[in-house]
């Protein structure tokens, strides 16, 4: 199962990747913004996306919309991990059809639970 971690902060990518590795997930691709993520989607068979919201060039929200509007990847599970915690933000994320949402700073337990909750509906 291949995960795509999208975040403009190398520190955050490293933290998420390390957390995933501690869950036994080793097949991980990284992207630094939405545009890069779309490119990585073209060249890899991704099964799960974990994305930040605030990113230059293309935000996580725009990435989600682009994915949902594509025929190829519209059903990909997307977990948004961001500092944005306002109600309007969550509503926007829901409307863009993210599968779940985590606000930073998060704990590995929360990350694992959210991944499980998404996978549980799909396995």
């Amino acid at each position, binding site marked *: 199962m291949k995960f795509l971690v999208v975040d*403009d902060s190398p520190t955050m990518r*490293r933290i998420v990747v390390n957390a995933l590795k501690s869950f*036994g997930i080793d097949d991980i691709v990284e992207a630094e913004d939405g545009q890069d993520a779309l490119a990585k989607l073209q060249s890899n068979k991704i099964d799960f996306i974990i994305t930040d919201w605030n990113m230059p060039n293309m*935000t996580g929200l725009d990435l989600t919309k682009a994915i949902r509007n594509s025929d190829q990847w519209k*059903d990909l599970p997307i977990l948004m991990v961001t*500092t944005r915690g306002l109600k309007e933000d969550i509503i926007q994320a*829901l409307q863009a059809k993210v599968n779940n949402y985590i606000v930073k700073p998060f704990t590995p337990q929360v990350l694992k639970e959210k991944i499980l909750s998404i996978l549980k509906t799909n396995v």
Partner: protein
Amino acid sequence: MKEKSLESFISKVEELRALFVLGQRVIPLLEELFAFVSETQPLLEEINTSIKENLTKMPNLSKQLAKVTEATELATNEILDIIDGVFYKIDIANSNLSQIEKVHSEISTRLANKFSSETTETKFLFTEISGESQKLSNENFFAELKDLSSLLNSTREILDNIRNDASSIMLALQIQDITAQQIAAVNHLLNIVQTRLNVLLAKFPFFTEEKFEQKEDINESNINLLHKKIAFDPDAVDSLSKSTTRQEEIDKLFNESSVETPVISQPLNEDLVPNEIAGALDENSNEAISQEDIDKLFKEEKNNN
């Protein structure tokens, strides 16, 4: 005719008199106004100087903020490198422990078998055992093996604790991303203030006589270009103290939402799901995950689909 001219003349004189009276009343007011303007001018000049000074300080302020971001990023990465090293050493220690456990288990089994059987092989082996080994064959030997086993378990527990602590430190480093966003937000505000002050200076003609000296190299005066490009959440300031509450609120919102989130049309290949995750899925297949809120939402959505 002469009477009328005289009346007209008197009327004009009266008007003139009224004008003088008005003038007499207005003059003190005008004097006060002039005094006020003369008093205000130094104040305005002071404001002007202050604005100019602050405008020149802003790029420096922005540079300092950029340095803070870079320094925290560097420090965070150094800590992450160390944590990676700790994880690597824990893995080696765990692997060594496993080998010791394996050898310990094999020795225990073999010796137990050999001590309990009266086979020729055992007898042969007993003859081969050196004086040192014979010492091990006393009653305390199995107790010692048991002690060794519990020691190995306790060491493994300690290693697991170290791993958890290292993971906690690693996750606490998320603060670097959050503070970087906060600094970027402050920098953005500085840029807005800089732009508005420049506009304000340009609007006052007496200020423009000695225009604020814009450096020719725009890179050195434009705050936006001084700071590393960071996409930021303007409300990131709240994210440190209220994250737990916010996550609960978010889960609630997701629960209450009637928006359909996609469910993978092709079921995932279970073989591809990492063991630990797959294990957790099996464990939880008949019971709710601790965050009931999330499940409710997604169960509803699955039913809808």
